[in-house]
């Protein structure tokens, strides 16, 4: 029980609020009751307690009656608590010795039973009187106000607010998420009712913003976080990378070379823009922006990160030479990879989600072959020598890629090759019919043409060629790219029989010497590309029957799918789920059979493939006279192991750092299959690139540790979601043409695409990355303002006041399915009409239907998504007026009959009614009635091919069917897309309808619930331009009055901890969301930092010892309030 042993003199004041309270609450009874409450010495009632005479009553009684506590029973404390606290203070009573009880919003307005409402009012007053006993005198804290302001959103309201503050001499940060300021107004054609051109009145203001010395414009930026409190906010703003610096002069040269087109957001998807774009010519700032949505999956998946969409889109535009340049930036072997790459890019291609992936690999081959066909051999560009020498051992894909990269940086390169010709595995491992030798020679020669010396027949470990010797000979660094040259055995009986060969030896023989001993009936063991190549090679060298024996199933086969298909079509048989256990010879020692264990699939192994497990006792035998083992390969490192600086891994590969490629020996790096184990050509190239980068950094004295753990940018989104676009038709991908004459010979089997095929195929690319990353704009930009590697920047701003001017979004009319928006071509929304009518819009200001004809009849449907309990109940305020404007514009620009279908006409503003009359006089038809549906189902001849608007004319009382050529949906205004996110960041509340809630609908329409934050424009509720501008100015005044006062008063409702009672359990520290409580190690207690505490009281509720308290929300105060509520009656 709370004891009330203090002597107090309490005054209670009951407000009638006109009749707002008194019509439901029996004031007299309440007053009588209040007189009976303990320590109450004065009770008064008054019509309007908040009025001056009302406040004077309090002041007078405090002075004359020596009141020590005051209770006012009136409206919500959110409304007038400050008013009455000030009155108390004026009378010399501490402002916190006051308590308010809410008998209006939470009593008289919500109850109609007079007796019950009166009883409840008594309980609320009793609670307040009991509570106020425990109130204590407190001092308010003052804090300085930071003089800068932040405006979020740069539509017309935000622009106005920013200019007003800037003009007053204060600094403003204006943050806008779009690349340009201007908001919705920049898209409008004319403004009602004056029919001013929107651009003519807006763009001068935009220019002013751009040039004002007190305004720091942050476009393409979003607020991510807010901390601090009124007067002292800390705001975190993310400036998205626009990939164009402020050196941009806005000349637009980049646009003409950019190959990527996307629907223009500014034109509501009715025309296109390039990936590098400026929303509209008058944009502020006038810089371009590159629309990058992340790294596309094709580029991200490619081991060497080829900028796939870049060259694909250039091919689509017949810009083949430029396409090749994009490829050769990272890949010196387009013709080789265009034939033999396992193209993981195609498996990830987002077009594959829609129909089929782009034939990326075939497109690469096409441009490479096109160049040869047209005798365009680009000269290798030789870099200026940097005086450093690097030796590369091995001329396979890894070694040559490393050489290519380093040579382009000016290093002097020497490549040592064990065999007589360069190329490594691509030369001796890949058969002619997949990769003709002239293609191979041409591309290798081109790489060597970069000033790279090649020494063939130079194997490491032979003729005195050693790592140490090379280092002594003046090479600054060495890259080992040794490859895998040893075939793995199965380790089964009969493996040493004549007729059992390893695929490496077999293929090398065939590919280097043009002949190889081949049996009549050949079994190839394995499922990789080497196995498939061996099988197909065997067919070409005389085998009558070729089979592949694989221990798993087709799904797990690592070989390229198309190659497997080709092998099958050539007659190769594949036996799945069999594992050789014995090679069996006849009496003469000749191989005759291979015995296999039958397998089944078990649990997935580490690689994710299901592990094969033997089926006990089940075997199968295949008659063969030759077996080719194609299981796996290992590097031949015997000669290196003698050098104790080099280590082998447990898989018998060369040990090297996976990030920096460093080996155990200084200055020696390693890459390729010798390190990673058998991989594909493009993976080996990636490894070579990694080593080249490491060597370059090492020799430039950079820290190799920075190579570790580089973060990847996010993947691209598959499809655009922001603009309406026509259904993408399903389109099959191009079929890779085969040479009908090739047969099963050494002649190349696959053919190159024709230019027509290639252009068409490339055109299927969705450019899901936004920008294709071809980077041709780099050359087009004369001032060098483009930076494709730009990153987002995050800035922290200190501001004293914040203005939210984040606007609205148009109601999504697709939701009202019966109006056919998104289904019928000529049903458009109001923003689309604005652009259609705009002189710089997609039709140059001509109002045309989708088939480019002027409409003969146009219907404008009011209240779409507004005043409709199925969507939004509120009135969007602007639609009647802009619908009248549309009617006027259609009348002015066409000969069409115009029908406005309205529920009520709301022409409430200055000059609006006059405008309505004017449009009425222009012969526009007005039908009072809400459209029931828009249909294409014609009931008579004149409705054929028309949009039929069905409506009940409520004035005539008949249902009408109106055949139209165009229907404009006057959609309502809904909260901006990010409203919910912003309300969380800024701690704002949303009102009904979802718009930001103001502090008071009448008296504080631009103050947000949180102090120091102001609201302007349509983010607070639907409004037209004049109202938005007025609110912008009002919010600026609010912000300025806060800033110019220079200090804020902070309510002392913070937590406090009683040192005596605190047990040091630190639960409060875990409870505090603001890190406002610290542990004092010396005293072994928790201590509150008052400046950081925001007064939520969570720590108080969680304190087990009762040591924590909250000022003005003390336990004793709340407990006595409970008692008061329950003790009454």
């Amino acid at each position, binding site marked *: 029980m709370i004891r009330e042993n203090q002597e107090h003199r309490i005054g209670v004041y009951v407000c009638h609020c006109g009749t707002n309270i008194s019509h439901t609450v029996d004031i007299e009874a309440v007053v009588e009751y209040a007189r009976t409450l303990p320590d109450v010495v004065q009770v008064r009632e008054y019509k309007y307690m908040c009025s001056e005479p009302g406040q004077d009553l309090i002041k007078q009684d405090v002075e004359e009656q020596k009141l020590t506590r005051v209770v006012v029973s009136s409206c919500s404390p959110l409304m007038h608590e400050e008013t009455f606290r000030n009155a108390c203070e004026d009378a010399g009573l501490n402002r916190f010795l006051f308590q308010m009880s809410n008998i209006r919003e939470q009593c008289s307005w919500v109850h109609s039973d007079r007796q*019950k409402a009166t*009883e409840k009012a008594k309980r609320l007053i009793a609670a307040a009187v009991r509570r106020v006993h425990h109130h204590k005198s407190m001092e308010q804290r003052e804090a300085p106000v930071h003089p800068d302001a932040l405006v979020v959103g740069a539509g017309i309201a935000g622009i106005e607010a920013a200019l007003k503050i800037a003009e007053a001499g204060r600094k403003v940060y204006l943050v806008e998420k779009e690349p340009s300021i201007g908001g919705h107004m920049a898209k409008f054609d004319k403004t009602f009712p004056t029919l001013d051109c929107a651009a003519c009145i807006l763009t001068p203001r935009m220019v002013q913003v751009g040039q004002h010395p007190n305004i720091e414009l942050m476009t393409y930026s979003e607020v991510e976080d807010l901390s601090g409190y009124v007067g002292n906010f800390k705001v975190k703003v993310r400036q998205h990378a626009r990939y164009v610096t402020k050196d941009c002069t806005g000349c637009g040269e980049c646009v003409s070379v950019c190959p990527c087109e996307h629907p223009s957001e500014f034109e509501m998807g009715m025309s296109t823009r390039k990936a590098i774009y400026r929303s509209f010519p008058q944009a502020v700032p006038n810089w371009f922006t590159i629309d990058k949505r992340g790294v596309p999956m094709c580029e991200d998946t490619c081991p060497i990160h080829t900028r796939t969409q870049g060259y694909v889109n250039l091919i689509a535009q017949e810009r083949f030479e430029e396409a090749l340049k994009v490829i050769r930036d990272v890949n010196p072997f387009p013709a080789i990879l265009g034939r033999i790459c396992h193209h993981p890019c195609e498996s990830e291609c987002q077009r594959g989600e829609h129909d089929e992936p782009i034939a990326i690999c075939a497109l690469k081959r096409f441009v490479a072959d096109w160049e040869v066909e047209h005798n365009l051999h680009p000269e290798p560009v030789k870099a200026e020598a940097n005086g450093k020498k690097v030796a590369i051992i091995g001329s396979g894909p890894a070694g040559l890629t490393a050489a290519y990269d380093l040579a382009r940086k000016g290093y002097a390169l020497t490549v040592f090759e064990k065999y007589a010709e360069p190329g490594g595995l691509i030369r001796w491992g890949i058969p002619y019919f997949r990769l003709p030798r002239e293609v191979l020679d041409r591309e290798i020669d081109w790489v060597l043409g970069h000033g790279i010396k090649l020494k063939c027949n130079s194997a490491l470990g032979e003729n005195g060629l050693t790592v140490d010797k090379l280092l002594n000979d003046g090479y600054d660094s060495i890259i080992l790219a040794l490859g895998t040259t040893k075939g793995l055995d199965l380790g089964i009986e009969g493996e040493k029989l004549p007729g059992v060969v390893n695929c490496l030896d077999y293929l090398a023989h065939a590919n280097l010497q043009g002949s190889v001993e081949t049996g009549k009936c050949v079994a190839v063991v394995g499922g990789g590309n080497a196995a498939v190549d061996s099988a197909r090679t065997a067919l070409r060298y005389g085998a009558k029957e070729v089979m592949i024996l694989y221990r798993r199933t087709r799904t797990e086969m690592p070989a390229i799918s198309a190659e497997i298909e080709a092998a099958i079509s050539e007659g190769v048989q594949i036996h799945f789920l069999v594992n050789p256990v014995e090679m069996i010879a006849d009496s003469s020692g000749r191989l005759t059979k291979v015995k296999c264990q039958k397998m089944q699939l078990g649990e997935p192994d580490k690689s994710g493939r299901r592990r094969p497990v033997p089926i006990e006792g089940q075997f199968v035998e295949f008659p063969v006279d030759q077996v080719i083992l194609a299981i796996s390969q290992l590097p031949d490192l015997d000669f290196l192991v003698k050098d104790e600086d080099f280590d082998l891994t447990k898989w018998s590969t060369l040990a090297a750092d996976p990030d920096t490629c460093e080996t155990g020996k200084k200055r020696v790096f390693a890459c390729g299959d010798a390190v990673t184990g058998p991989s594909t050509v493009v993976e080996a190239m990636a490894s070579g690139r990694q080593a080249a980068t490491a060597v370059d950094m090492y020799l430039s004295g950079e820290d190799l540790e920075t190579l570790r753990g580089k973060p990847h940018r996010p993947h691209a989104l598959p499809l655009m979601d922001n603009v309406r676009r026509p259904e993408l038709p399903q389109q099959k991908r191009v079929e890779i043409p085969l040479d009908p004459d090739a047969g099963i010979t050494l002649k190349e089997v696959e053919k190159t695409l024709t230019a027509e095929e290639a252009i068409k195929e490339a055109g299927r690319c969705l450019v899901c990355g936004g920008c294709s990353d071809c980077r041709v704009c780099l050359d087009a930009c004369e001032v060098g303002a483009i930076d494709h590697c730009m990153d987002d920047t995050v800035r922290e701003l200190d501001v004293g006041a914040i203005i939210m001017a984040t606007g609205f979004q148009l109601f999504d009319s697709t939701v009202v399915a019966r109006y056919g928006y998104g289904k019928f071509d000529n049903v458009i929304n109001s923003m689309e009409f604005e652009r259609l009518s705009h002189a710089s819009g997609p039709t140059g200001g001509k109002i045309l239907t989708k088939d480019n004809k002027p409409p003969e009849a146009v219907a404008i449907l009011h209240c779409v998504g507004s005043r409709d309990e199925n969507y939004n109940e509120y009135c969007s305020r602007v639609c009647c007026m802009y619908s009248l404007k549309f009617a006027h514009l259609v009348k002015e620009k066409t000969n069409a009959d115009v029908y406005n279908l309205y529920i009520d006409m709301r022409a409430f503003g200055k000059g609006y009614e006059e405008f309505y009359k004017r449009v009425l006089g222009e012969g526009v038809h007005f039908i009072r009635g809400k459209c029931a549906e828009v249909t294409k189902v014609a009931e008579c001849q004149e409705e054929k091919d028309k949009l039929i608007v069905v409506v009940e004319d409520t004035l005539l009382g008949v249902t009408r069917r109106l055949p139209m050529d165009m229907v404009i949906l006057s959609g309502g205004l809904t909260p901006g897309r990010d409203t919910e996110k912003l309300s969380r960041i800024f*701690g704002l509340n949303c009102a*009904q309808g979802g718009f930001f*809630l103001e502090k008071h609908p009448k008296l504080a329409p631009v103050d947000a619930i949180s102090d120091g934050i102001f609201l302007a424009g349509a983010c607070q509720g639907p409004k037209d331009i004049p109202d938005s501008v007025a609110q912008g100015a009002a919010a600026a005044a609010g912000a300025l009055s806060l800033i110019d006062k220079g200090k804020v008063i902070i309510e002392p409702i913070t937590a406090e901890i009683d040192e005596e009672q605190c047990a040091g359990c630190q639960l409060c520290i875990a409870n505090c969301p603001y890190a406002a409580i610290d542990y004092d190690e010396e005293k072994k207690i928790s201590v509150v930092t008052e400046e950081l505490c925001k007064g939520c009281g*969570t720590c*108080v*509720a969680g304190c087990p010892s009762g040591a924590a308290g*909250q000022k003005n929300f003390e336990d004793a105060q709340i407990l006595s309030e409970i008692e008061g*509520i329950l003790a009454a009656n």
Partner: protein
Amino acid sequence: MANEQFEPRIVGFLCRWCSYTGADLAGTSRMQYPANLAAIRVMCSGRVDPTFVVKALKDGADGVLIAGCHPGDCHYSEGNYKAMRRYPMLLNLLDQFGIECGRVRLEWISASEGERFAEVVTEFTEQLKALGPLNWQESISALCTGT
């Protein structure tokens, strides 16, 4: 039923930012709901000490409503989550005293949900009417004497 005339007494703890503002909105929108609940304003639902609830029930309340911002919307980031975690423990405790869990309610009511506030109070009042008076003294003394 005997309880037809029974009017439960309800104490409501409303957070200042969302639910109290929501209750005010119900008022400015003139929505009607039973007069059984009287509200106490706290800064955050996280401030509601379980002893407040016990105190209210002990002092004669038949039900207690705790209302705060929706998860994710708390003005103080996470106070409502604290309330949400304390709530089941509180119910557990009350259950041991034989007090039905239907007598204490935790609700999320935003500043724009005046209608929801009115609905919650109406529904909760009906629910408590069905449960009947709490009779704390009897329950507790029964518990103490073991009958």
